[in-house]
């Protein structure tokens, strides 16, 4: 597969892999040029690229902030989700109490909670962090729970016959068996974490890409607002891609 891909001529590969994205950018450029939009209303992709090249430091600083909050929230959310899943695995009562609640919560539009959380935690980075934690918590809990409960066939009987303690079953069987599922949760949550952080920053942040977008937009620096969006798109797509590679490796290791 990989070898075959590298044998294709570069141009063909570019067209085959990126025809959709190239088409989209081309359509954007033509749309703006043909309609003669004022750059304040809608800049061309070329103009956005120009702003990226002219003011790189503005972007770098805000990307750093958003990435840091997203990464920290992602780790915290996955830790809490996995921790609760382990608690539910240990105790049927905890599992019975938690399961319907998490099903309910996983269908809640989290964006609607941002203002409420902001009222509780304040209009700053802690709210952004809380949103990222909440949004990454649910997939980790759901995927970890099902992963902990699907060990390889026969292995649970084996551990019982070998006289394994509950802790030993958790450590040597259930947790490793849950790793591929946790990797899926990680992949789903990684891209989400960045986008959720951005929405929260947009509404009430004081820094980061989402804030940059909101501020430049209201100052009519539309090119920079779109620059922030393009950067966000690229980093969240990259995060998704990298997390996908991590998932592949984990799957090869544990499944």
């Amino acid at each position, binding site marked *: 597969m990989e070898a075959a891909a590298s044998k294709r001529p570069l141009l063909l590969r570019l*067209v*085959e*892999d*990126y*025809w*959709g*994205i190239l*088409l*989209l950018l081309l359509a954007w450029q033509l*749309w703006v040029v043909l309609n003669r*939009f004022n750059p304040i*209303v*809608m800049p061309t992709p070329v103009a956005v690229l120009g702003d990226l090249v002219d003011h790189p430091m503005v972007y770098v600083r805000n990307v750093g902030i958003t990435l840091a909050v997203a990464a920290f929230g992602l780790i915290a959310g996955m830790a809490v989700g996995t921790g609760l899943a382990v608690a539910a695995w240990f105790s049927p*009562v905890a599992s*019975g*109490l*938690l*399961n*319907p*609640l998490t099903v*309910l919560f*996983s*269908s*809640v*539009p*989290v*964006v*609607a*909670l941002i*203002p*409420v959380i*902001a*009222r*509780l935690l304040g209009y700053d980075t802690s709210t952004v962090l809380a949103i990222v934690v909440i949004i990454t918590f649910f997939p980790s809990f759901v995927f970890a729970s099902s992963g902990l409960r699907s060990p390889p066939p026969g292995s649970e009987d084996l551990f019982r016959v070998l006289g394994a303690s509950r802790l030993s079953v958790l450590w040597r069987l259930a947790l490793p068996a849950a790793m591929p599922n946790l990797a899926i949760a990680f992949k789903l949550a990684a*891209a989400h974490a960045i*986008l959720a952080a*951005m*929405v929260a920053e*947009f509404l009430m942040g004081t820094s980061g*890409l*989402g804030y940059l*977008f*909101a501020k430049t*937009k209201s100052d009519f620096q*539309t090119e920079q*607002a*779109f620059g*922030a*969006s393009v950067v*966000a*798109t*690229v980093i*969240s*797509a990259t995060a*998704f*891609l990298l997390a996908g590679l991590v998932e592949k490796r984990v799957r090869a290791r544990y499944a």
Partner: protein
Amino acid sequence: MTAGARNALLGAMGIALFLALWETIGQLKLAGISWPPLSAVLEMLTDEGRRPLFQRALVATLQETAQGYLWGTTAGLALAALAHLVPPLRRGSDRLAAVLNSVPSIALGPIFLVLLSRDSTPAAVSSIHVFFIVFVSMGSGLQRATPAHRDLFAVLGADRLKRFWRLELPAALPALASGLRLAWPAALIGAIIGEWFGASRGIGILIINAMQNFQIVLLWCAVLLAVGASLVFYGLLTLLERAAYARFG
């Protein structure tokens, strides 16, 4: 008592515990004035005088969400089918979908504002969210027909389109149904974010206005409306998903 009944009881207790906790924190003001008791929120939500306000917002948001859901589903299905039937297009369409999904929703708002209109923006943002989920679930669903079945169709002399119509599409329906279930909350989020870019009414508008005017109970009412709108349809789509698994899974 059977395991099922015990789990149902425990689950109900879990939810009751959560609601009781909410009420207690609100009554005792443990989280300050920003956390009203559940009873106060419900009281305002059922208040006759405010009914038209809530009804207008809810109807507007549901309309946008339904519209976006429909557009997104159509686009997702079309691209997934195209990529499946014309393999050279597959890699490119995967990447296009992944990039579209990575565009921050708040950036989609201003684009659709210019491209469409104020009132179509919520549905358009919503449709992008739905598009990705439906595209991915349909794409993986179409791969679910087993090699043995494909061989059978080949031996029977079915052409590409017949195989798609009689084998791959039915085999994809359960995965598609799961996608449709997950797409609803995403559609609702899209509509709410889309409303922030100048829609005239909707739950998103209600949330923003309540937030900016420090009407805390009203803010929680709006959030609860959003949660309700999400849950009801999520529940219905879960039933649809079960039916699809029972029939085609």
